């Protein structure tokens, strides 16, 4: 059975206009946002418009044994949408309807191709928000972010994507459709399948409908920028704020390399001689916000920091623009940006930051680190040039050491970007062979022929 026949079958199933085989188009689906990855052309790209279309596609894929790679906006950072073994890229862009906003139950039901920001715009008139906010809120899809279990800047107080996914409709590899979870806050009916598919990186099934939790938008916010001459002081501040019973919505850190680059890029008035800055935002009821902000100021000053409280929305936007610019600004420095998301318990933050500085020195690399200090999720960002093979060797050694260090400190190799191709080989380091084997058994049970996003995670 040939590929050409499979493509014919796809055209018959979902219509010619939804099946792309033109070479120039295929090139555009051969990569994603991940650096230092091989690219691979798919054989065909399909654009389903409904769950039924997805079912039909899976039937064809199953019949012709063609691998299927679900794809949202292709902004993931672990090589997760690269069609490594050829086959079918299934893109969800045209399944982009917001099906329901149910303000009484604080939920929304969406198709997977909806862009995160579009959901937020739609629920705003109800005074509600969908909190998960990866740096790509304006581009990433709900399906992609559920499948990566994306985090973002508000993880400490609001959690991450998995804390908001209440129900999923999934098309399995053989075309079976199943629904798990729903609109109720409480639901212990059998296995928590919703959690299993959340963060599964498209390796277990195709998500076709998502029910998410919404929360009331906080009434007030206060952003602050704390500057430290010593890294340790910043680290201590983070732990002490939490010890003082204040849980900021955001507590972001940038190291010196990042500060300098961001300032150069965005000109927001960051002090370029500081060793670290923390961007802290508390939100909630106005009186509580005031009280918490006062506590933050006290803790920062006690730890030798210099703090500035944003007076108005404009200043707040400036501070936030700086943080949002961190990765892009670093990326401007050198052609290739290798971005990791090793994560440690909050109390080990300083240890990790110091270790990263040493690793940069040891391998003679430029590493800028920023990230979500409040939840211990750091983004050491190695700036390099993939055309320089000698340097790339050192980059790979440094990455190995970063993961080893994170695990030694009681952390994990990925806080929010996922495993994909980029980190697959490190899984045994975290779970041991036996742990990986248990996961492999789950994968085999649901996708015995490894047709769903092969080459990623355990596949």
């Amino acid at each position, binding site marked *: 059975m040939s590929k050409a026949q499979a493509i014919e079958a796809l055209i018959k199933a979902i219509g010619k206009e939804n099946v*792309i085989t*033109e*070479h*120039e*188009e295929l*090139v*555009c*689906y*051969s*990569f*994603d*946002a*991940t*650096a230092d990855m091989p690219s691979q052309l798919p054989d065909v790209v399909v654009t389903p418009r409904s769950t039924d279309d997805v079912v039909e596609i899976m039937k064809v894929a199953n019949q012709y044994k063609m691998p299927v790679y679900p794809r949202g*906006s*292709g*902004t993931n950072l672990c090589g997760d949408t690269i069609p490594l073994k050829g086959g079918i890229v299934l893109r969800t*862009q*045209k399944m*982009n309807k917001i099906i329901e906003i149910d303000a009484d139950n604080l939920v929304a039901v969406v198709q997977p191709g909806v862009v995160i*920001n579009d959901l937020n715009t739609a629920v705003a008139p109800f005074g509600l928000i969908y909190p998960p906010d990866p740096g*790509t809120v*304006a*581009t990433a899809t709900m399906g992609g972010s559920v499948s990566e279990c994306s985090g973002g800047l508000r993880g400490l107080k609001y959690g991450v994507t998995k804390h908001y996914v209440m129900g999923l409709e999934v098309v399995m590899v053989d075309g079976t459709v199943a629904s798990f979870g729903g609109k109720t806050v409480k639901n212990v009916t059998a296995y928590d399948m919703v959690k299993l598919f959340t963060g599964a990186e498209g390796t277990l099934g195709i998500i076709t409908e998502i029910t998410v939790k919404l929360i009331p938008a906080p009434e007030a916010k206060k952003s602050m920028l704390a500057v430290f001459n010593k890294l340790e002081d910043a680290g201590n501040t983070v732990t002490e704020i939490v010890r003082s019973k204040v849980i900021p919505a955001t507590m972001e850190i940038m190291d010196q390399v990042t500060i300098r680059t961001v300032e150069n*890029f965005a000109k927001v008035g960051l002090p370029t001689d500081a060793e670290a800055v923390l961007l802290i935002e508390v939100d909630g009821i106005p009186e509580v916000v005031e009280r918490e902000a006062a506590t933050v100021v006290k803790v920062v000053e006690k730890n030798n920091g210099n703090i500035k409280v944003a007076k108005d929305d404009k200043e707040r936007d400036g501070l936030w623009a700086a943080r949002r*610019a961190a*990765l*892009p*600004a670093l*990326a*401007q420095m050198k*052609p290739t*940006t290798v971005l990791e998301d090793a994560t440690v318990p909050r109390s080990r933050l300083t240890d990790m930051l110091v270790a990263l500085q040493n690793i940069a020195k040891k391998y003679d690399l430029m590493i800028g680190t920023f990230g979500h200090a409040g939840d211990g999720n750091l983004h050491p960002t190695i700036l390099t040039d993939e055309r320089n093979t000698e340097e790339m060797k050192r980059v790979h050694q440094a990455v190995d050491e970063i993961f080893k260090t994170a695990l030694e400190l009681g952390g994990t190799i990925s806080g929010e970007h996922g495993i994909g191709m980029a980190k697959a080989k490190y899984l045994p380091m975290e779970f041991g062979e036996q742990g990986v084997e248990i996961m492999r058994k789950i994968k085999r049970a649901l996708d015995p022929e490894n047709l769903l996003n092969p080459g990623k995670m355990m596949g």
Partner: protein
Amino acid sequence: MAVYDNIKGIEEEIIKCMKCGNCQAVCPVYKETLSESGVARGKIQLAAKILKGEAKYTPELYKKFDLCLQCQACSANCPCGVKAHKIIMAARAELARQNMLPFAKKAAFNILKKPGLFDFGLRLGSTFQGLAFRKNASGMSPRFPIGLEMRRVVPALADKPLRSELPEVNKAPNSRKKVAFFTGCVTNYIYTSVGKAVVDVLNHNGVDVIIPKEQHCCGAPAIINGDIETGKAMAKSHVDIFSKYDVDAIITVCGTCGGTFEQKYVELLADDPVYEAKARAVARKIRDISEYLVDDLKVNFAKLGSVPISFTYHEPCHIGRGMGLTRQPLEMLTKIPGITYKPMKQPNRCCGGAGSFSLTNYDVSYQILKKKMADIQGTNTNVVVTGCGSCRMQLEDGLAQEKMPHKVMHVIEVVQMAYQNAKEKPAATANKEQTKASQKSGKTKKAS
């Protein structure tokens, strides 16, 4: 290496792209097609293939690069500072060198190179308007260099082109400055009132306006489509023409023309031992009319007559992102007495016109235009002000098709109204006094 002479000239820009996909959030084409080949990220990866010598020069490849408005939204919002629109242009140039330009476009550019012939063709079109339109509808002969044959609602050509109506030298009553005026095709052949407004307002301010007779099309349609050879010929010709005049500034009334003189000519002639310096000298003098009135003359618009209209503003891509003039047009308009400005939600979102784009990709173009129309509709105004003739054509097309009552005006026409309304009060001497008043206010801007 000049960026458009060889795809290698753009390598560093291509490498800089981190493939983050942020451009998806702002690309008007992507918003319609939702396909990766529509957005800069996809196109840049295709350009990378050309760079590596791995691309096949197919009509499909040509189409991918053709499907771009050159609106520069991607470049303006790229976190890595990638000049994505330039990469796309460089790829178009490479494709043109590989003989991928469709025949019709190539033929049109060849005509452009001969200003006399071009002029002749357009006058002929003007006289036989109705006939020419019918011919155009069947795609037989493009009426305009960038071709308008597929448009459904097209503005009428002026009875007489601007440059044959106005003298070459337009002296001001109290002359104190001298500028040259590059009219651009749309102003010369369609919206001649815009050109007259420029002369009128500048004369009022004591500025002599020279309209060099030899000028022709700036060449943007050729350059944007990758016909670099034609583009260079047009660039050299205009650099020669405008170098001849000892003027304070060269005025433009269209962002695309202005940007072509200010940036593209310099880029195109960058390696030319004779023309590089000359092109730079011309480029330094380029001023959009809004920029010249606000920044150079420092006109006190608050002292002008009242213009009691309620307007919304569409920022042309090449005025805002292209020439960086986001402040000047509005600063000038909003200071005029009696006027009310009601911003649309996304004033700087492309209208979808983009020259030949609206011909070769009319469906996508019209979908983009419809978004603009909805945005205008939401403003509760009856005038749309803009600063570019080709945006105006596109907007008028949309307004007519959507049956909206709005009138489109060029920025300078509104300013001219303000001058006229001031004049009407103290009859005879108004003209002179007005000139004096604005001269004075020009020098003592802070006092106002």
